[in-house]
């Protein structure tokens, strides 16, 4: 368990590098930043936040079920968590797709409708993709880990004396949720009234 926490600290600083870059560029180009927020879909972003929070709830319930040796509940909640996680990724996919269609992916024929922000907006969109992309990657890994848990749960590995893997992957899943809790306001909300 301590190992997992240590690993999460590493993850905090991994994302931290990008958050630092975000802070710097947001401070440097506030107007360009404000202008990009019109492309951020608050409704989709908000929905995704809610979806992730739900998945966190089902995850913690799964851990609880494991602690209580309720295998059926454990499997149910794991599946629910995975469904929420998948919904999140699907919505994210739609968002990415619309950015792609609007030529807002840096490095791939990036076109911005306000020429004065063309360059700086590219950096901010890169940060958007880097941060959410890295987050999505963690989600995918998380889904893989949940699948592994599911298989083990089916094999009746877990009981009230042995559920550490469920707990650890739970911690990981909540951490990924926390990252999104910060990404949502920073990328979607701040500046969309400027």
């Amino acid at each position, binding site marked *: 368990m301590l190992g997992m926490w240590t690993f999460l600290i590493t993850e905090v600083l991994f994302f931290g590098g990008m958050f630092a870059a975000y802070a710097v560029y947001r401070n440097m180009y506030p*107007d360009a930043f404000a202008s990009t927020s019109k492309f951020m879909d608050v409704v989709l972003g908000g929905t995704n936040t809610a979806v992730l929070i739900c998945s966190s709830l089902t995850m913690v319930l799964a851990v609880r079920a494991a602690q209580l040796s309720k295998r059926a509940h454990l499997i149910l909640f794991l599946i629910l968590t995975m469904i929420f996680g998948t919904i999140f990724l699907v919505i994210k996919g739609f968002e990415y797709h619309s950015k792609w269609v609007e030529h807002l992916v840096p490095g791939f024929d990036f076109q911005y409708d306000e*020429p*004065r*922000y063309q*360059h*700086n907006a590219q950096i901010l969109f890169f940060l958007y993709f880097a941060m959410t992309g890295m987050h999505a990657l963690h989600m995918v890994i998380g889904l893989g880990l949940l699948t592994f848990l599911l298989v083990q749960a089916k094999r009746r590995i877990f009981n009230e004396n042995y559920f550490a893997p469920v707990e650890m992957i739970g911690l990981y899943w909540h951490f990924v949720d926390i990252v999104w809790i910060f990404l949502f306001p920073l990328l979607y909300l701040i500046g969309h009234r400027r």
Partner: protein
Amino acid sequence: MPASLTLLLADLQLFPPAASAQAGPIDDLYWFEIIVSAIMTVLIFAAVILFAWKYRRRANVRATQIEGSNVLETTWSIIPFLIMLIMFWWGAKLFFAAQNPPKDAMEVFVTGKQWMWKVQYPDGSHEINALHVPVGQPVKLTMASEDVIHSFSIPAFRVRHDVVPGHYDSLWFTATKPGRYRLYCTEYCGNAHASMSGWVEVLNDRDYANWAGGGSHGSLAEQGQQLFEQNGCSTCHLLDQQGRCPILRGVYNKPVQLDDGRTVIADDSYIRESILDPNAKVVSGFQPNIMPNFKGQLSEEQVIQLIAFVKSLSPPTPASQQGGQQRPVVIAPKAKAPAKAPAASAPQQ
């Protein structure tokens, strides 16, 4: 072999010449650090050798077990710390003094590119990998990079500053001894990094006057004016009446109101940015997206010429010479008097 050895030793240098006003004070600190370090090193070496020899292992002598001593620990934490505080304070003081050039500093422009230093003087002459300065005169270098990070360094003057692409960096010095000194690039910048070096020639006043004699292409500002016309700037930036773009006369080093409400000083960096990326900071009352982007069209050297031209449109008065370093409150910006949106501009200062 002996012959070549003597040759080698004939060239042997152990300490660099000190040829600028700041070299002396920095050397003083350097010597202080050397003396402190030497004392510490000798003390520690002596203690190690003494203890190792005096308490070397002998047949029936046993080590005395000692726990440690809080008094000693505190002493040898605090004393070094105090000495280091002196170094910190001293170093910071010299560093602060190196920040701002005197007002009467002569301005020289340096552009770093892979792999050479291009130097431009206000009188319009220019040279590569060489810099001529008069003795006793403060010189401010305004430096730009065309590509990667370079670092401009003159060891004999103890000055060095990185030249980071995307903005101007500057350093200043006052040469105190006529002579030839080496200059280098000290930030690795690619294949021929080593050849990005040259000479600084410090000349006494008479020699400098002789050397500076001929700028056949006109002054830097005149070169800038040519560019200003060739690139069509003059069609919108009219010199005496309001065109589609701000009047540039009298703008240099004055506060400028931007369309997002901020105020910036129209210094070298701002003018550079406004040429290369005009939409980044648009003057209040003017339309964005009118002026073309000159990034990639103009070299850093040409930008410097243009800036010199803009600067020449604001003849130095005692007030404007001070203006650059002061708060932007006092002077009402002339340039922002806009034709199209008069209402926006008046009340806010």
